[in-house]
């Protein structure tokens, strides 16, 4: 076979398979199992080919494999233009390429594809561990590329060492490109699978059903403040407003979701908020929630593109938050706003809505209050007193029956924020006070070193807002009436025993561990601020700070200066190395002499001893023989006898050009 000469050797194949494995490994969990099996099978076949037990598949087999793969993808995903099927398609083609891995060219193709596959990892995950894994991928794939050049360089240590060296050398270039490379928006939007949504806050709540309260401690928000930090009792991060109650479940109700036509001010610059400075300015970094709602304190305003404000004082994003998202917020606390609030008829109706029947006892209690002619705030106070007297805050309340509010208020009297907020709003509405449930996060952990507020899943909270004529919407937190420490110190300390009863180890009792967890989150936060959220705005800012003004000429100058600095550094390094191994003076002088002789046409051969050279000079250029002899003698004494006088003599001899000696001689 003519091709057999360029067949890939064993080391090449093993390296390619290793690179493929490393690139595909993080995808194994996401890809359908059959792709993993197909990959293993393709490798098995290729190894059999290497052993000579099997031939490379013919055209028919390849066609069959492609058909099967496409059919498998179609069956596994059922839709094409989403991210996961695309990654799967890439993985499958990567896998099938093994069946025609014949020549060196195929190997390079496969390895370049491996870089691409490794990069798709970051579509899903952008955290630090995955970044490290990405570096590992690049290391192994580059090593595999390096190993393609032959048996010697295919040794693992050598290949990996070379690869590490290459990557280290590429790192400055990477940094430079990271800073100056224009951030392009995505060329096309690939819808991401939203089925994996998980959040402590969902678009509805049903307090009676079961305890769905998230005990997860994964971070949700990181909030850094520019200026004053709100006191703990102000830290209510509103995300959703539930206005509709169907007797069991609280939900946003019709016409609230922005996509269903609710009133959202996307261009918030014409807001009717006062010019005088906002009380709080902050930046929120939100983890992926696969939902459009954002979190901010009441009366927020955001200049971040794609963020709008709803009529019920929330922020929403145009598209769901599929990956970490940072937004700037300015908040005017409601009590600082002086304009007279008005509640429209439709709004009033929406916030008084109750199911036609059910929870008769609560309604009766509310009617009683109403008949007594009490104001909204007085009713609220009575209700809160009622809570305070006999209710218990617990994370594991009993399930409630059909009239969930009645049962909670008059029988079980145990529950957590959802129960309190739901029953409170129900009672207030029944008493004729417009009210609504607000869901979001409350509190957060203050990270001192980095000065930001860390909000975790378990900080999810629900509270209420009631309409007080003349003052507008007022926040009421019924949970605070029962368990003030829940609000002050957070859920974890309020219900510590319950909270941690599922945990295998009582790690929460060890302060070092908590400290470490905070440290880790801090590192994550820095990573996000410095790397992930480096978008075109920040890039422009940074470049402006570096260059003064962003123009093509300055950018070119900047890149050029960086490259020049790199080259100068390399040069300096080389000079430093050569300086360290600088030969002694006599040798350097003799080298100078050799250079001059070379210019005169006598080149000393590397292995030629000075005396042999002198002899050759006598034969070939007699006119230079005498000076050569003298220099050689002086050099031998200086270099090998280490005679300082001879060194001086050699220096003196070399001070004059050699030709001068010649003229004197002739």
């Amino acid at each position, binding site marked *: 076979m003519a091709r057999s000469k360029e067949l890939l050797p064993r080391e090449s194949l093993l390296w390619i398979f290793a690179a493929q494995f490393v690139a595909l490994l993080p995808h194994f969990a996401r890809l359908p199992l059959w792709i993993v099996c197909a990959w293993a099978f393709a490798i098995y076949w290729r190894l059999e080919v290497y052993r000579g037990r099997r031939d490379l598949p013919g055209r028919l087999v390849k066609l069959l494999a492609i058909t099967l793969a496409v059919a498998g993808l179609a069956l596994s995903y059922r839709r094409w233009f989403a991210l996961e099927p695309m990654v799967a398609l890439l993985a499958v083609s990567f896998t099938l390429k093994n069946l025609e891995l014949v020549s060196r060219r195929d190997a390079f193709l496969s390895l370049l594809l491996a870089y691409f596959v490794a990069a798709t990892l970051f579509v899903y995950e952008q955290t630090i561990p995955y970044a490290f894994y990405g570096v590992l991928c690049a290391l192994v794939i580059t090593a595999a590329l390096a190993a393609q050049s032959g048996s010697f360089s295919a040794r693992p240590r050598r290949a990996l060492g070379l690869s590490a060296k290459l990557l280290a050398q590429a790192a400055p270039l990477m940094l430079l490109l990271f800073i100056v490379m224009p951030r392009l928006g995505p060329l096309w939007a690939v819808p991401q699978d939203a089925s994996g949504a998980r959040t402590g806050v969902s678009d509805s709540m049903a307090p009676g059903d079961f305890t769905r309260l998230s005990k997860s401690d994964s971070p949700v928000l990181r909030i850094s403040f520019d200026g004053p930090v709100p006191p703990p009792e102000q830290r209510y991060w509103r995300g959703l407003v539930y206005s509709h109650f169907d007797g069991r479940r609280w939900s946003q109700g019709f016409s609230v979701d922005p996509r269903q036509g609710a009133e959202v001010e996307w261009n918030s610059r014409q807001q009717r908020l006062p010019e005088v400075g906002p009380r709080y300015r902050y930046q929120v970094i939100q983890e992926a929630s696969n939902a459009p709602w954002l979190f901010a304190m009441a009366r927020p305003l955001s200049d971040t593109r794609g963020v709008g404000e709803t009529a019920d004082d929330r922020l929403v994003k145009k598209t769901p938050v599929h990956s970490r998202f940072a937004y700037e917020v300015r908040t005017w606390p409601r009590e600082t706003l002086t304009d007279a609030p008005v509640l429209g008829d439709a709004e009033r109706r929406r916030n008084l809505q109750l199911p036609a029947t059910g929870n008769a006892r609560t309604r009766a209690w509310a009617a009683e209050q109403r008949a007594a002619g009490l104001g909204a705030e007085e009713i609220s106070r009575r209700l809160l007193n009622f809570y305070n007297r006999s209710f218990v805050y617990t994370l594991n309340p009993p399930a409630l029956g059909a009239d969930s509010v009645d049962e909670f208020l008059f029988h079980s009297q145990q529950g957590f924020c959802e129960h309190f907020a739901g029953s409170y709003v129900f009672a207030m509405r029944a008493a004729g006070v417009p009210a609504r449930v607000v869901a979001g996060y409350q509190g957060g952990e203050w990270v001192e070193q980095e000065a930001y507020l860390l909000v975790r899943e378990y900080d999810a909270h629900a509270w209420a807002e009631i309409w007080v004529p003349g003052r507008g919407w007022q926040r009421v937190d019924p949970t605070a009436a029962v368990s003030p420490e829940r609000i002050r110190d957070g859920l974890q300390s309020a219900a510590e025993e319950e909270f941690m009863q599922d945990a295998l180890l009582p790690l929460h009792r060890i302060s070092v561990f908590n400290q470490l967890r905070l440290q880790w989150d801090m590192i994550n936060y820095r990573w996000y601020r410095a790397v992930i959220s480096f978008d075109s705005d920040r890039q422009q800012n940074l470049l402006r700070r570096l260059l003064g003004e962003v123009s093509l000429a300055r950018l070119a100058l900047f890149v050029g200066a960086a490259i020049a600095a790199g080259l100068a550094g390399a040069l300096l390094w080389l000079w430093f190395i050569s300086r360290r191994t600088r030969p002694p003076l006599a*040798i350097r002088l003799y080298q100078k002499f050799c250079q001059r002789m070379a210019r005169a046409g006598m080149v000393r051969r*590397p292995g030629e*001893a*000075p005396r042999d050279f002198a002899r050759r000079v006598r034969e070939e250029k007699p006119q230079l023989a005498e000076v050569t002899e003298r220099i050689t003698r002086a050099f031998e004494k200086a*270099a090998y*006898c*280490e005679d300082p006088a001879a060194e001086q003599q050699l220096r003196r001899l070399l001070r004059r050009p050699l030709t001068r000696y010649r003229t004197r001689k002739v």
Partner: protein
Amino acid sequence: MQKIISAIVADIGKILLGKEHQVKLALACLLSRGHLLIEDLPGMGKTTLAHALARVLGLSYNRVQFTSDMLPADILGVSIFERDSGQFRFHEGPVFCQLLLADEINRSSPKTQSALLEAMEERQVSVDGETRPLPEPFFVIATQNPLHQSGTFALPESQLDRFLMRISLGYPTREAERALFQGVDPRAQLRQLKPRIDIAALRKMQAMVAQVKASESLLDYLERLVQHTRQSPECSVGLSPRGALALLHAARAWALIHGRGHLLPEDIQAVLPSVAGHRLQSEGGDGARLVERLMRQVDIIAA
């Protein structure tokens, strides 16, 4: 001192015509307390060289012709029961001398070879559990036939390494050969040779070898040479530290023979083929050509 050396070289040169370089190498080998391996075809004057050296330097001389049925005891000596005294008495073998000519060492079995080589290394002989020192100085000149001749056991590399130098004499030049034809019988001449120095003087000269100065620049060159043998893809086995040290010692002796108190690169180059030739191995090529390339490639002045 210089006169004595010149006289020694001249004396031997009278018998071994046109082989001044080899004679000097042998002398350098002796002065640096090493052993010499002469590899050549039969009849090239190997034995004559050894014998002449022994006579000129005034050393006691023994010659052992190695054969394939030789046993270690044949060289080292044997204890024999004497009926008169009723005791075992050790009869010293031929190894107990100052200059031993081990002729055709590669004809004997490895067992015998190794017995001799051990004696060379330790400068003592252990027989019947008793250790007997060999005379001082102890110098072995071994000769061997080229390996392609039949009936030979090649010396393994580890044992070749025991020899400081390996030289070959080669055919004489035309003039030398003509002079040989016209001259007196070398054997008769050999008998007329008188010792030029005594043992004490020889010891003094050996001590002087160690005092020859090796400058930094020269050691740099030596280091480059050794590194080159270890890194060059041509050499499958580089020079060992022992080999490098042997090179330095031999070069010192060479410098001393030429009346210098310091080493020059030429000294190293002069002894390099005979010191490194049998220690280097290359794939396919022979050591001599490798050494030649090595000398050409490694710069004397700087890296």
